[in-house]
């Protein structure tokens, strides 16, 4: 497989997954806002921090009102994190490799991009937003299923899975972070009664509620939910699960030692965390740490397999 094609498939899958999870992220915050008592509501500002793009946001906007944030996260073509932008890049990447992915998958990715653009008005209305975001999630799931059901299990598919899982762990960690950002003080007596409801909405936005019930057979409790979302060996959106997927994928590739070492480092970090002892601040730092580990894994992949990495290595060699 061409190094450039491997890289493109990887990014195509990342952008698809990013769009889906951005939709989930917005949904979870919308639900939280409805559940929390009105006077304590922190609104939409925390979402901007969670995407890690505050600098860009404040350059383009002067308030954190719902409509402004929604525009930035859903429709703004200049926003690096908007759903519209992710889907555009998913499509551009797919277009570059349309010769290697099944035609139906390309048609679906292309159609989703058209849908997302054509329905922006609906998305910006409060009433239409939920169904719009759900449609984005559902269509992404369809594409994942279509690829899984029609693509040869060759290197290309491994890179699609790598991209999907690295992005999914990163974004799942951000979705959990919404919850911690919305509750600055754990002890806030006022919020205690709502705590479980809020974790329930995090679970639901990750389509994890039923699976949590089945797997944990427990009430909704912070420590169990956090454990489930970070450390479950069975739930396909848990961070450990994603990392283990990457671990398996990479071993089917040539010369995987470096990348595997990075993956193992991330895995140890996740498995070793005593999550029940973490307060919100510690949880938030832990999440940051996970995101940095994901970056390291990406760097290792880039150096070993991708054209960008190959060419920059070659240039460094020639320069020295």
């Amino acid at each position: 497989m061409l190094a450039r094609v491997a890289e493109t498939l990887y990014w195509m899958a990342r952008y698809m997954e990013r769009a889906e999870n951005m939709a989930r992220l917005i949904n979870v915050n919308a639900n939280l806002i409805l559940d929390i008592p009105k006077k304590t509501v922190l609104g939409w500002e925390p979402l901007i921090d969670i995407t890690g793009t505050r600098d860009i946001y404040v350059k383009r906007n002067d308030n954190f009102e719902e409509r402004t944030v929604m525009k930035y996260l859903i429709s703004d073509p200049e926003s690096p994190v908007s759903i519209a932008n992710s889907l555009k890049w998913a499509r551009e990447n797919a277009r570059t490799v349309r010769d290697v992915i099944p035609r139906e998958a390309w048609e679906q990715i292309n159609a989703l991009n058209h849908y997302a653009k054509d329905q922006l008005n609906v998305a910006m209305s409060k009433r239409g937003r939920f169904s719009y975001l759900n449609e984005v999630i559902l269509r992404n799931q369809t594409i994942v299923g279509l690829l899984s059901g029609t693509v040869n299990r060759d290197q290309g598919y491994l890179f699609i899975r790598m991209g999907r899982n690295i992005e999914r762990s990163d974004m799942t960690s951000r979705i959990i972070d919404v919850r911690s950002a919305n509750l600055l003080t754990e002890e806030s007596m006022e919020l205690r009664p709502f705590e479980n409801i809020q974790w329930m909405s995090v679970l639901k936005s990750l389509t994890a509620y039923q699976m949590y019930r089945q797997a944990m057979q427990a009430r909704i409790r912070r420590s169990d939910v956090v454990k489930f979302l970070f450390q479950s060996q069975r739930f396909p959106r848990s961070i450990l699960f994603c990392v283990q997927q990457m671990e398996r994928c990479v071993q089917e590739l040539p010369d995987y030692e470096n990348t595997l070492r990075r993956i193992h480092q991330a895995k140890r970090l996740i498995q070793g965390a005593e999550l029940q002892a973490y307060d919100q601040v510690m949880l938030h730092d832990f999440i940051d740490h996970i995101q940095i580990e994901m970056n390291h894994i990406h760097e290792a992949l880039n150096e070993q397999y991708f054209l960008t990495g190959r060419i920059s290595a070659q240039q460094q060699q020639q320069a020295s």
Partner: protein
Amino acid sequence: MSLSWNEYDPGKFFDELMQSKGKPRKYAKNLAKFLVDHSDQELETRKAVAELSIKEMGITFTVYTEEEGSIDRSWPLDILPRMIPKSEWDPIEQGLKQRVHALNLFIDDIYHDQKIIKDKIFPAELLANSVNFRKECVGISPPRNIWAHICGSDLVRDSDGTMYVLEDNLRVPSGVSYMLENRSVMKRVFPELFESYNIQPVDDYCSQLFDMLASLSPRPADYPEVVVLTPGIFNSAYFEHAYLAQQMGCELVEGRDLVVSDDDCVYMRTVEGLQRVDVIYRRIDDLFLDPEAFDKKSMLGVPGLLRAWKKGNVALANAPGAGVADDKVVYAFVPEIIKYYLGEDVLLPNVPTYRCMYQDEQDYVLNNLADLVVKPANESGGYGMMIGPVASKKEREKFAQLIKKDPRNYIAQPTLGLSTVPTFIDHGVEPRHVDLRPFILSGDSISVTMGGLTRVALRKGSLVVNSSQGGGSKDTWIVEEDA
């Protein structure tokens, strides 16, 4: 309300479907009746099906404009097909084979002994001035001595019904993917018509293309590594490059994916490391192929590619330098070329062509600019030409100057009354002018597509069919009449 043929009037032009006002040609009767039997609304629905299919299948072409950069546009297909009876197509096919065969002999001769020049059939000064002649290719013998493996020739039909060759594209002709996609869309739109007509299939083009390319491999192996080389996603024909690679099951590569190693072989950078490449179907112009040999600034090409090709370590299709035979001045000599190499008379006529390099012909051109189409020798896509009858006086004067300054670079032809085909315009059907581009593959044997890509000028009275300038396309049906 439904469509009525009584109002359809092709005027003085030859119409591909209608014999005269209200009277369809024999082979178009079923189609004409089908359209009358269906309501406007039904036809509108079919049109919408076609448009949606094209959008969802992502059949696009890229347009570059100063203001907006490059935009990916949906491919324009008019759902009314162009039909040619098979009995009429067969001789055209023979004519195309004859032509391409002779052109390949010509190119090979030009890069070796130049007998045709020594025998005074082809003027030496034409070659000396040719922008597509590559001195780097002199003395090279590509596999089977074939240079133009893929050729796209443009055919037009004049008012009297004669089919002429307008030009040959021997460098990187494009459009074949649209021919194939048009057919697959049309099968979704008019399944009934495919049942009632015996339409010759076009689907085997890609497997023929692959077999031809594979046969060029310098290493006799069961599975030669064949790749399609594209300038990248911003090229107007990128869709086609990706389409052909996908249909042939080979890698679509860009210049940066390839590297020529110290052993003068071509390799592609894969996840595992370097992997040898045997055959390159290149969709990059000669001058951008190899910055070492040609344009130093080219970012699209592969340094050392020409070196590898000269050593016979990799096959390039079409071969560099093949374009020497597709300039419009060489075109004017094709009948002589066929006679010289094959000893045969030309089967498919050229459009009468005035060569401005000869004083008497130039004088005729300058005196009759208002009736002629003037074309530069080496431009494609309809750029840089002048259509006399519609050009302004100022434009004609500009071209008169251009011709006097560089006569060798210009030819002129009478304006033909290009044939028309009924085409959906707004809510009715009107005649619009068309041309036809069949594709010819040359390897062990020569094969021609069944029909080709019909391009249609969507503006009333316009003769410009290029998609980059507002043209559309039609499916082309070669039909058995007695079916």
